[in-house]
């Protein structure tokens, strides 16, 4: 008797569930999308992993937020969980009648971006680090260049050269034998950072030899100074194969600091936390209030994360790039600029677009620090919780004290390199292929 009742109840439940589900499904399918607001939108499609890297993706979003705020737009965020999401995400954004600009962040989206931009000629598309126009050239040669698509690229190699010079001169000054670099997964974008950094280091040492020949001659006799190391051993570097496992960043950085690297360049997003930890241990052990040793931030201004120990950050103004694309859409100049430049915007050191300065790469300054501190404060107000590690005034003071403690000639050298890059007097290598990279590694380590 009990068993039959049990089975009957099960049947009843099933039938009920099926009816409910079917009803919902019918309702959904007949309704079509609802809840779409009327404000114009900027859509940001992020790469796998999305935001929270304190650098790349976050900067892209920052630019979008600022554009939205200034132009009165809404933001639509789509996170890609796998590469299969790229086209569906971009199409979802494009299909929404209110989106005006769709931004794809990350070079892996290039194919998808090209395909969707071709399909929706009435929408504007911008890619960060992408080579979508190249894809268009290959796949749809009669449409090249697409007027509604701009690839925004950055000259990371130039910025990395600047911090590489900075790092190596620190080593020269403080008598350290090495500098370090922790990278994530070996993808071609990171080659630019890797080779640029090493090249900058080399440039700096040559510069020092010319500028201060006497000190050079004496320092080179000191086995603990970087000048005394073979060229290929100056920079301690490794790829870690991950953009998320902090332990590995920690272990790599710890090994570098153990070998007395004066500064470690973070080219691995969140692994910066691991690098910071490795550095922090040394600071605590020696009772240091500021570096040396240091680490170098990337993409965003990361100087505030551990004030006094982040000597500088290699800023890649992805936010400015995104903002600029939105600005072009707002002013109706998008197609012009796109056509004038074959659909590519290369933002770097000393870049000018349409007569306006559009610097995409720079070494962080105290002004940049202020900007990011303000961002942190705004975030704190919004969330009601602390974001900054200490009082803003303290942060400013510590960073300034750290910078002042480094001899002026080091900063002068970096400015000189920057000027030379700007005037085209030196060419920072831009490795494109495996053989390029191999060649440079043969020379520089």
């Amino acid at each position: 008797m009990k068993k039959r009742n049990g089975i009957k109840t099960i049947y009843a439940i099933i039938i009920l569930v099926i009816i409910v589900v079917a009803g919902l499904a019918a309702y959904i399918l007949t309704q079509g999308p609802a809840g779409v607001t009327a404000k114009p939108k900027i859509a940001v499609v992020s790469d796998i992993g999305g935001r929270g890297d304190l650098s790349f993706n976050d900067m892209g979003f920052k630019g979008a937020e600022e554009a939205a705020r200034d132009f009165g737009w809404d933001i639509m965020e789509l996170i890609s969980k796998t590469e299969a999401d790229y086209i569906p995400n971009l199409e979802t954004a494009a299909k929404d009648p209110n989106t005006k600009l769709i931004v794809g962040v990350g070079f892996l989206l290039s194919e998808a971006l090209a395909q969707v931009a071709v399909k929706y000629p009435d929408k504007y598309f911008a890619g960060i680090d992408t080579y979508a126009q190249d894809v268009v050239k290959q796949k749809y040669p009669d449409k090249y260049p697409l007027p509604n698509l701009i690839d925004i690229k950055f000259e990371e190699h130039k910025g990395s050269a600047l911090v590489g010079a900075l790092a190596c001169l620190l080593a020269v000054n403080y008598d350290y034998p090495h500098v370090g670099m922790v990278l994530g997964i070996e993808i071609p974008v990171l080659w630019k950072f890797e080779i640029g950094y090493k090249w900058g280091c080399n440039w700096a040492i040559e510069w020092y030899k010319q500028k201060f020949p006497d000190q050079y001659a004496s320092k080179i006799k000191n086995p603990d100074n970087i000048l005394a190391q073979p060229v290929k051993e100056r920079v301690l570097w490794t790829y870690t194969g991950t953009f998320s496992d902090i332990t590995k960043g920690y272990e790599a950085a710890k090994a570098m600091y153990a070998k007395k690297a004066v500064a470690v360049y973070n080219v691995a997003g969140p692994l910066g936390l691991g690098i910071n930890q490795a550095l922090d241990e040394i600071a605590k052990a020696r009772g240091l209030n500021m570096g040396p040793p240091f680490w170098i931030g990337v993409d965003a201004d990361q100087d505030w994360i551990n004030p006094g120990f982040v000597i500088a950050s290699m800023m890649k103004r992805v936010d400015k790039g995104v903002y600029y694309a939105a600005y072009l859409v707002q002013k109706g100049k998008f197609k012009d600029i796109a056509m004038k430049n074959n659909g590519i915007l290369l933002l770097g050191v000393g870049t000018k677009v349409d007569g306006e300065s559009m610097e995409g790469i720079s070494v962080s300054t105290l002004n940049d620090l202020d900007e990011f501190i303000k961002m942190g404060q705004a975030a704190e107000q919004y969330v009601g919780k602390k974001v900054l590690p200490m009082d803003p005034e303290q942060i400013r003071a510590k960073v300034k004290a750290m910078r002042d403690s480094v001899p002026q000639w080091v900063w002068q050298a970096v400015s000189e390199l920057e000027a030379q890059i700007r005037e085209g007097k030196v060419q920072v290598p831009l490795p494109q292929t495996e053989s390029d990279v191999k060649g440079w590694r043969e020379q520089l380590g």
Partner: protein
Amino acid sequence: MQKFNLDVRGVAETLIALLAGLLASSILILSYGYDPIKAFYWLFYGGFGSLESILDTLGYATPLMLTGIAFGLCFKGGMFNVGVEGQAYMGAIGAIIFGGLVPRLLPFLSPFSLILALAGSMLLGLAWALPPALLKAYRGVHEVISTIMFNWIAYNFVMFLVRGPLVNPSRPEMSLPVVENARFSVVPGSAVLTTAILASIFSAVLIHLLLTLTRLGFEIRITGSNIDAAKYSGINYKNIVITSFLLSGALSGLAGGLVITGRPPVWALYGTLGNIMNVGFDGMGVALIGRNHPLATILSGIFIGGLWNGSRLMEPYSGVSSELSRAIIGLIVIALSIPELSKRLSRILQG
């Protein structure tokens, strides 16, 4: 009549678990001030609400079904093949080698590229499952340890191959793509779905038939439910272990191969392994929801695929973070683990 009753109960239990999971997630969503109705609306609309989204959902489901079946097969035999992830990676490499490198080196083989790619992927997946199988059969090393370690070794090894010998010289962030002949046709109207799904479904049916009709399938199932009975009835335990693993590995490998040969627009493996990451782990979830039954795994694969697909609309239109779809699946899996949920519920309902 008996069998019919059992099936029906299973379906009911799964549906109830689904509802329980959705209910629990609604509470979660509500607790942070978002609207669960809106969230689920967009979730399901995004996954199943239009023809295009259904097609895309099927595209997402394609490899998940296979890794699910692969895991489920071993599970039926009482083993946890956590290595489906690594075997899928190796399968992807197999497809690239046999469907990309070989046809380029030996053009006369080009017309057979697809077959080569799929066979290659199954071969490599199988080969990768062999060491853990042997370690278990002859050395008693628990497969959980060996497969986890092999997953990580595969991760590093595949990255090395994609960066090195198999790199695409003009696009160094990716591996060589498989040649035109080795690509499944894209289903019109979808950006993700190709005819590869037929391969998945076909394999699922094949495995179901294997498990229910063949002697091997019978032996696997016996070994899974009662090892001692299996040994006493003369089943060669070592053989079963190895065979189950090899089959499972081949299926996972095929799943990896389908991601390469069956997914536009790149038909290659990214240097970050982004397109193949988690294919194995997500497949485990699919298997568990499908209670390790091959045919049910097809459905649960479609369901999970739909959740992945739909979650992209959840975030922009309802504000709920798209990662929540993962949490929802987790809750459903937990709810599914309770076998007599429906019985208990019905007892409660009866008063």
